């Protein structure tokens, strides 16, 4: 374990947790567990959010394995235009 994962936060979420990007050593190679870890740290559940792993949008209930150097993005709903 202890893969290094880059995590990027955007918009309202980045503002609320006061962090745009961080690198963390994941305790598990399961994405859901990593997100649960971030939830506990930042109380992310108060936000509607969209998840992207290595620039691919994913569903949280997917059983996804993360690996070293992956980039995870935590995004609020899109508001372009």
């Amino acid at each position, binding site marked *: 374990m202890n893969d290094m994962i880059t995590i990027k936060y*955007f*918009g309202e979420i980045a503002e609320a947790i006061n962090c745009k990007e961080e690198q963390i050593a994941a305790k598990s190679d399961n994405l859901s567990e990593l997100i649960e870890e971030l939830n506990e740290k930042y109380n992310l559940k108060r936000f509607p959010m969209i998840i992207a792993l290595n*620039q691919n949008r994913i569903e949280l209930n997917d059983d996804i394995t993360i690996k070293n150097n992956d980039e995870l993005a935590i995004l*609020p709903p899109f*508001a372009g*235009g």
Partner: protein
Amino acid sequence: MKKKKVFIKGAISPEFISESIAKHQSKHSIGAHNIFLGQVRADEISDRTVEAIEYSCYEELADKKLFEIRESTFEKFDLTCMHIYHSLGLVKAGEICFFVFVSSKRRKEVYEATEYVVNRVKEDVPIFGKEIFKDQSHQWKVNS
């Protein structure tokens, strides 16, 4: 994946739009253009007035989604050209933040193609907007 320039720092000026139009005058097979422009509204939200929107995006995912939108737009519609521009950073009320430009031989399909591109960009491209009020407070823009 060919990357096209989409993001513009600050507002999209009327001059930028006229230059884009002028560039298409050498394409003599084009008979119809359709342009969508998104302009920042000075909305009043519980007694505060929007003065500007500050846009940010997740650029790597945005580029990927914009590429997909281009591909599927050209698949769905018979177009000669298609361009998308969106502001990043501060855009004041009355200024333009979003510019979609579709060109075709004939007019028939351009309206629907423009609407399709506008909707896809709003739904699929990770862009975020901070609505800044005259009193310098702010809230995060939510698309309806």
